[in-house]
């Protein structure tokens, strides 16, 4: 169990915001942090790992006090034994893939784990390569592997899957989940991907402007009960063309552009760039596997 209560003033794009978080993390829990950029998600991970110091608050684990501002306790990151995958990988450019993992290996630990991780992340072929020539996805796999070498009890993942293609992403997600369960890790994942959160997390914390505004299982947080019979999709208006008495609206849904036809009256209030929601009855929706 980690008890965590901190506040810290942050400089966000929108001005100064207060990060105010009070939470309890159970051992073995998989938590996802979800919310817009600049809302304090990464800072939360940095405070937990000891890289940032909050203005106020404490962090307590079962046996240790990591931080207590009032009593001037602040345990250095080296002693917290936390695995951390940084958003921009932070791989050591003076070392090869294998050397990066070896550096992470605590003294007197068996090197077997390194072979296992290299194999699992499909890095065996690349193990003697210079870090600088790897692609983004390859770097991300090295960063993930490196964070698992030290076999910490707490794993912090700051958007670790963003640069991976779908097949690899799914495979590595499965592996992280497996390790999380096998080693009874406590894992905190920052993610913008709802499907990823659905797949992996037990609990989602939605953070906005430094505050937790929603907390619960992914299902509770992301499912809008009021429209459960309807499917609601958010779209952006790209173009409105007049065709006789009707109007054709080009809309962008995700990465797909679609056209729908509506009467002039219905589009009267709409402007280019407006966000609209489109609902359709779920029992009428046709689905196809891609």
């Amino acid at each position: 169990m980690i008890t965590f209560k901190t506040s810290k003033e942050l400089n966000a794009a929108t001005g100064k915001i207060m990060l105010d978080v009070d939470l309890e993390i159970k051992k073995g829990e998989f938590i996802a942090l979800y919310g817009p950029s600049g809302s304090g998600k990464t800072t939360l991970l940095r405070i937990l790992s000891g890289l940032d110091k909050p203005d106020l608050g404490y962090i307590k684990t079962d046996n240790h006090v990591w931080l207590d501002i009032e009593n001037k306790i602040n345990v250095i990151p080296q002693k917290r034994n936390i695995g951390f995958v940084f958003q921009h990988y932070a791989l050591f450019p003076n070392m090869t893939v294998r050397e990066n993992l070896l550096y992470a290996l605590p003294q007197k630990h068996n090197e077997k784990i390194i072979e296992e991780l290299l194999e699992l992340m499909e890095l065996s072929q690349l193990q003697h390569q210079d870090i600088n020539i790897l692609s983004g996805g390859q770097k991300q796999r090295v960063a993930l592997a490196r964070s698992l070498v030290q076999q910490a009890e707490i794993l912090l993942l700051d958007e670790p899957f963003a640069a991976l293609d779908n097949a690899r992403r799914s495979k590595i997600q499965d592996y992280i989940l497996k390790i999380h369960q096998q080693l009874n890790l406590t894992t905190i994942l920052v993610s913008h991907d709802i499907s990823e959160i659905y797949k992996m997390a037990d609990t989602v914390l939605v953070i906005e402007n430094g505050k937790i505004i929603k907390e619960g299982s992914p299902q509770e947080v992301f499912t809008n009960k009021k429209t459960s019979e309807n499917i609601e999709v958010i779209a952006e208006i790209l173009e409105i063309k007049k065709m006789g008495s009707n109007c054709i609206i080009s809309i962008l849904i995700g990465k797909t552009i679609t056209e729908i036809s509506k009467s002039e009256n219905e589009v009267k209030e709409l402007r280019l760039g407006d966000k609209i929601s489109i609902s359709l009855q779920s029992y009428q929706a046709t689905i196809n596997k891609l």
Partner: protein
Amino acid sequence: MIDLDPLFLTFKLALLTTIILLLISIPFAYWLAYTQFKFKAVIETIVSLPLVLPPSVLGFYLLLAFSPENAFGKFCKHYFNTQFVFTFQGLLISSVLYSLPFMVHPLQTGFKSINKSLIEASYILGKSKITTLLKILLPNMRASLFTGIVLTFAHTIGEFGVVLMVGGNIPNKTRVVSIAIYDEVQSMNYHNANIYSIILLTFSFLILLSVYIFNHRSNNENLLQ
């Protein structure tokens, strides 16, 4: 035939100065690069002073400080039985002070050029500050280290004013090449002065050329870019 002793003495002085400065400047530049110390600007100014001061000013004050008539000189004479005026040790201390910015500046720039997240990643992996310095920071700022070492060495070889003030012109003890050249010119031995000068000119050209070639191959920020 010219006397080779001033050449040996000069290289000995440059080598020792470079080694001492490297050992002092790594921790010092590390501190300067990361500290939030209130009076950091004052310290940086003092380090940079030898860049702008006439060497004779520094030499003058060192001469006063080393003099057995004054406190520091008296202290050294009394407790360590050492005298710094007109000795090689005195020359070495003066060189270290005079070349300090040539080592500290490139190293400080090198430390600052390293992405903070590399240091943080190393701490997260449980590595101490010393391990991080030796295994992560220094290997990733090789160009800065190279620049610092080469510039310090070259700059020490080019010293004249400080050396003259503190060391004088004692053969085999304090008579370095730059002094020897001056001396030869004074005695109208232009031939010898020319040989010493050509050696220094060629050496300085090659050493600076190596710095530029090395730095063009690496992207690190440094003093010469």
